[in-house]
């Protein structure tokens, strides 16, 4: 009798568990189905399609608006490779690398120092935190336009040079004016994430260091830097991954009126925004050719990103 009751309870419990299990599964499948579908279409399929695209050639029909598609072998890759290897292709690469170098060697160290200042809550740190983040909030387009008017109209008013710092034929002057803007507005997200990471540092470590008589530089170099190194790695890596998609805010500043220098991110965006074309022409790269160009760049930059990540994880300071 007692055994029967026990069996029954067990059975009921088992049933309840099974029904709970099914319920959980149904809920899981229902809730995940739409995001999964979206991911498969817009990430997996779009990227897979981008590979297919790179091997296709589209030719317009003569008598109607339709087109013919054929397998293009490596024609698109050849066009894209020639673009990279051309003189302006190299210029674009060098410009992008130069911007990254400034970010890595100038913005990152100064942003770290700023974040240290803010997270130690020295004078006005709350104010600095808000002001540093303003350019990110107000949108880089608006900051870029205000900057453009200042280096054109205000500069022209003050110096009498009506062309301004972004006009004229001096490529170097235009380039450094644009570069300066990029450095100027780069601090917001950097400082936000670094201060976030710094606020997670255990205060007992800082107190121990203080008792040992560590000065500001020692505290920054031996405690803060090693402890937030994973965040720094993330920034370095996203920077590398974005080298060739970074537009240097040039579309904000120049729109489609390309100045005498170019970068890949800006070039790429210009080609896809506005009036993209499926058909190859001498004036504009076609979408299949752009896909091939994107694939070549991804094939170069993805392994570099992964290698740098491995390297940094090996040589990085240990947080012990």
């Amino acid at each position, binding site marked *: 009798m007692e055994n029967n009751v026990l069996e029954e309870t067990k059975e009921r419990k088992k049933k309840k568990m099974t029904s709970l299990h099914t319920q959980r599964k149904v809920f899981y499948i229902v809730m995940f189905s739409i995001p999964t579908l979206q991911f498969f279409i817009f990430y997996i399929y779009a990227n897979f*399609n981008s590979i297919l695209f790179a091997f296709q050639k589209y030719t317009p029909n003569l008598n109607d*608006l339709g087109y013919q598609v054929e397998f293009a072998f490596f024609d698109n890759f050849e066009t894209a490779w020639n673009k990279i290897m051309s003189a302006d292709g190299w210029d674009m690469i060098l410009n992008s690398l130069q911007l990254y170098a400034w970010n890595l060697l100038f913005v990152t160290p100064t942003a770290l120092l700023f974040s240290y200042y803010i997270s130690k809550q020295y004078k006005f740190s709350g*104010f600095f935190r808000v002001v540093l983040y303003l350019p990110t909030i107000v949108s880089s387009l608006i900051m870029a336009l205000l900057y453009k008017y200042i280096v054109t109209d205000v500069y022209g008013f003050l110096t009498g040079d009506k062309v301004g710092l972004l006009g004229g034929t001096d490529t170097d002057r235009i380039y450094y004016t644009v570069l300066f803007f990029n450095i100027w507005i780069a601090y917001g997200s950097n400082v936000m994430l670094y201060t976030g990471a710094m606020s997670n540092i255990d205060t007992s470590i800082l107190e121990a260091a203080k008792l040992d008589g560590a000065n500001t530089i020692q505290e920054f170099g031996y405690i803060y830097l090693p402890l937030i190194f994973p965040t720094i790695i993330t920034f370095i890596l996203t920077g590398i991954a*974005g080298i060739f998609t970074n537009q240097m805010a040039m579309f904000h500043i120049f729109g489609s009126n390309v100045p005498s220098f170019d970068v890949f991110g800006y070039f790429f965006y210009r080609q896809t925004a506005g009036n993209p074309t499926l058909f190859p022409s001498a004036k504009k790269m076609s979408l299949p050719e752009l896909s091939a160009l994107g694939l070549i760049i*991804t094939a170069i*930059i993805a392994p570099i*990103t992964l290698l740098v990540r491995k390297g940094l994880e090996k040589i990085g300071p240990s947080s012990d």
Partner: protein
Amino acid sequence: MKKDKTKPKKHIKFNFVIVLLFSILMLYAISIIVVLLWGFLTSLKDPIDFRDFGNVLGLPDMKWSKNEVKFYNYVDMIERGFQVKVSDKSYYSGIFGTVSLPEKTVFFPELLLNTIVYAVVGALLNAFTAMTAGYLCAKFKYKYSSFVYSTMLIVMVIPIVGSTPSTLKVLYDLGLFSSYLGMLVMNISIGGMYFLVFYAFMQGLSNTFIEAAEIDGASQFKIFTQIIIPLSSKIIFTVFLLQFISYWNDYQTPLVYYPTLPTLAYAVQQNEAGSQGGTRYNSVPLKVTACFIIAIPILIIFISLNKVILGSLSLGGVKE
């Protein structure tokens, strides 16, 4: 006993590094504020005052302001200045070889509507999807959960440069190109970083609530809507705000994927690019006014909610 309210005085000594950092930060903060202030003052000037009388740096001279209204530029810009000429023809014929739609001009109310659909609904969907995926992956230990988690990590590390052309084609093939539905579907994405933020937060949530509710016979849907969503409301709000701000400011995605549904930021960029006639609206004061019309709502949100925006997100979840 009377409590001694004075905190123990810190031993303040002159620290060269800190003073130097303070000075640099102050200079930087001033540079940002001066640019914004110059912009605001310029937005109050009449183009005649600015251009013909060379009042580039001074205070606005009210005798030039029409109808004695101080914010006339703002009224004028909202009533007439904000306009985008949309030509469906150029977007379709080159890429997909299909019919052209009639040209039309989009004014402020429609621009605002598009911006709201894109920024409010888009950001809501985005935050909600990332939260749902974070919850499902953290609390449902199925194999698929770890697959999604590792896929998201890979997606964040591998830079894919050339998927825009292919995404355009996918959107077009699905009939979603330049439509509200397309705008929303693109945002039901699990996302990279915010998914990780939610995942970390959900992992930190104790299972006790969920288990207790399950024992009481609550359905999974009820647990999700009545326990999980309220518990994560703060972080959902923060992610929503950050996404809202970035969508509000983004003109590049609409320009490529939704060219017939221009947003306010899109209009600012187009006005700058000079695609719109009329010298008054192409003058610096009016262009700056356009910038401020889209910046002011964001500035108000940021100033009133800066603690939420700057303080509560980290990859380790929410900080109290």
